[in-house]
């Protein structure tokens, strides 16, 4: 049992620092350590054992155990184990040593923990607000259990302006966002530009923070949440709903019927298909090649139609529930799906062969947005961004879920670590997805679609689930709770990690390459921002109205050019 062996190794190394360990299966390891040992253990795991950093989660566990809980999740891809290093913090002193110095990838997660829960990471070098707006008063932490989900603090000042860092000397400031025609979603990159070269940037995001995690903990129930999880992202909805139900199923030790697993796999791969095709089109649009944009979308459309046939909607499939799926894939749909896949493969091969020789696109994408292996490791980049640098990580193979352990597929990598590499990786992953769907259609067994769950789910159990979204690994953490809802639900979308690498990717590149570099991580800001916010229906309708955001952008632009 691999997890047990790992635990024995930990015990041998750290001895008394480990308080307790849970091994619910041979692929999951939950190790409880003492507060003082967190930095030491995480460093060992990240550096010496060469694990991959996944997420950091803070939980307000005071109503149940009287303490705060912090979990640092790591992944041992080669051993197929997900490991969580947990610490309990006393309620009057929620402080923990920051691990960002050793694990730079944890930077945002710790800032978020501080904003939303008040758990202070001691020693974090860049302790600025990440999630909450600047006008939010100190001491009011929305994700704490004593704060109601729809409360707006009285001294909240919606008109306070964001304080930016100082620009380095000699640089003009070019604001990129929150309103920009290329970005479909709001994000603000404050570029420090010298001539045409970008010397640095500051990122301000979390403008579409919707309060999903707090809603799930307060007012929703286990089977309502997949519908909510689907709407975390505009493209990878199915991924989040599958990841959530898998985490709950793991926590409650439920075994999903095999037919449901195959159906989930098919829907996930369909989603990957339409996401990659969309991305290729978008990347070409960003570099000004609108024709390929139109063609990708034309080739992609039949997938949306078949998804509509299967699930009733083009994108929000609403097909997952805890314990199974809601709809079946009938024989007619299978036959039609095969036809769609054949046609798609033929057309896509033609496009790939044309684009691979296209020097015009290569000129715009080679050498741009470089993220090499060391950056991938330290910042924890995921998905095609990591695979384009030659790092072979793929949750479908490393931490198999649904029916992926029963199908064969290759993990596509490139070596160039730039936007061109990502383009090649995504284009070829389309063929692997088609291969997986075909195998699923062949191997699908008959059987029930849904597990009959007669009793209430057990309380206080933890479940982890890593699902390979088109953008990378999407990681969900669930602690089951009372009243038919989870006690804690944490969503860590892949763009959350990838965005942290963007400032390094665009450094010393030109402004013109900014958009394509950002676009190459396939950003999904709604995935990233999904965390806690307040339902402002009782107060004003929105934090920032679009008009206010626009005015702010224009005002800042004019200010900047006036002071230039």
């Amino acid at each position: 049992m691999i997890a047990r062996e790992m635990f024995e190794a930990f015990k041998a190394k750290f001895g008394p620092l480990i308080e307790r360990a849970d091994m619910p299966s041979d692929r999951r390891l939950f190790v409880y350590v003492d507060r003082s040992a967190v930095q030491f253990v995480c460093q060992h795991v990240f550096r010496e054992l060469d694990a991959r950093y996944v997420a950091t989660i803070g939980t307000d566990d005071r109503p149940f155990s009287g303490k705060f809980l912090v979990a640092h999740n790591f992944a041992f891809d080669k051993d197929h184990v997900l490991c969580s290093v947990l610490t309990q913090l006393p309620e009057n002193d929620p402080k923990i040593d920051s691990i960002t110095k050793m694990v730079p990838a944890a930077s945002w997660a710790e800032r978020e923990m501080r904003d939303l829960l008040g758990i202070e990471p001691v020693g974090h070098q860049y302790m600025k607000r990440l999630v909450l707006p600047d006008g939010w008063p100190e001491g009011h932490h929305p994700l704490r259990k004593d704060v109601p989900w729809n409360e707006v603090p009285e001294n909240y000042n919606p008109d306070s302006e964001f304080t930016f860092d100082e620009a380095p000397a000699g640089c003009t400031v070019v604001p990129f966002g929150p309103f920009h025609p290329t970005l479909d979603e709001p994000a603000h990159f404050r570029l420090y530009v010298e001539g045409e070269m970008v010397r640095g940037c500051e990122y301000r995001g979390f403008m579409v923070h919707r309060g999903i995690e707090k809603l799930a903990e307060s007012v929703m129930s286990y089977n309502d949440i997949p519908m909510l999880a689907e709407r975390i992202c505009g493209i990878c909805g199915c991924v989040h709903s599958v990841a959530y139900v898998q985490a709950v199923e793991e926590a409650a030790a439920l075994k999903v019927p095999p037919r449901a697993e195959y159906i989930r796999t098919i829907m996930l791969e369909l989603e990957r298909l339409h996401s990659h095709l969309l991305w290729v089109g978008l990347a070409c649009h960003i570099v000004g090649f609108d024709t390929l944009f139109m063609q990708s979308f034309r080739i992609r459309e039949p997938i949306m139609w078949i998804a509509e046939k299967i699930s009733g909607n083009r994108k929000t499939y609403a097909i997952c529930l805890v314990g199974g799926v809601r709809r079946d894939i009938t024989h007619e749909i299978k036959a039609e799906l095969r036809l769609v896949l054949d046609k798609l493969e033929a057309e896509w091969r033609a496009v790939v062969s044309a684009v691979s020789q296209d020097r015009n696109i290569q000129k715009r994408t080679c050498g741009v947005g470089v993220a090499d292996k060391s950056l991938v490791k330290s910042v924890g980049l995921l998905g095609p961004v990591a695979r384009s640098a030659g790092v072979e990580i793929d949750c479908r193979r490393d931490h198999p879920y649904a029916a992926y352990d029963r199908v064969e597929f290759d993990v596509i990598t490139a070596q160039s670590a730039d936007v061109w590499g990502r383009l090649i990786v995504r284009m070829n992953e389309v063929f692997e997805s088609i291969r997986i769907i075909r195998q699923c259609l062949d191997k699908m067994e008959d059987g029930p679609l849904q597990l009959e769950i007669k009793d209430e789910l057990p309380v206080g159990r933890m479940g982890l689930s890593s699902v390979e979204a088109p953008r990378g690994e999407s990681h969900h953490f669930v602690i089951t709770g009372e009243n038919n809802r989870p006690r804690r639900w944490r969503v860590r979308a892949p763009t959350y990690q990838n965005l942290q690498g963007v400032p390094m990717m665009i450094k010393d590149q030109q402004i013109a390459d900014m958009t394509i570099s950002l676009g190459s991580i396939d950003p999904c800001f709604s995935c990233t921002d999904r965390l806690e916010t307040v339902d402002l229906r009782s107060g004003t309708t929105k934090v920032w109205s679009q008009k206010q955001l626009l005015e702010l952008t224009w005002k800042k632009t004019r200010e900047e050019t006036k002071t230039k």
Partner: protein
Amino acid sequence: MSLLSKLEETLICLKAGRVTLPYPAQARPLPENFRGRPIFDATKCIGCAGCANNCPAREILVFDVCQEIRILQYLGRRCTYCGRCADVCPEKAITMSQEFENATNRIADLGQKLDIFMSTCQRCGRCFKGAAALEELKMKGYRSDDIQNERWIYRAHAFLESEPAVDDIPIELD
């Protein structure tokens, strides 16, 4: 060579022809199990409020006017068209229609209201779920061998006639 790839790309484009669909000039055929607007059939509804309990968006509200009258209101504003209400309805009173062109500038257009007369037990006078819609019809308005019941019914009438009171159902739940 780049020129060759450009020619290949142009060929792909020209082979595809024109793919613009004539929507909205022509309606687009939808698949059978398309999840459009849910339509509530009041004649089949037994007032169990299973839909209201399972709606992820909390868009179905239940208001018990009195012992026998239950008002189910589907507000339709935040409805995500997930179809859970249709799944859990024991009487199959909710169908996911094929209506998706639901844009309107009057929010009341989206709502559906069902006034359900709940059957009462002859012995104890409390409500129970009728076995079938037909039985519900039989008992509607004709049970008055109980002065208490009669009074409730009359009161319910008066209440229902003053429409605004019923429309002012506050939205905030929980």
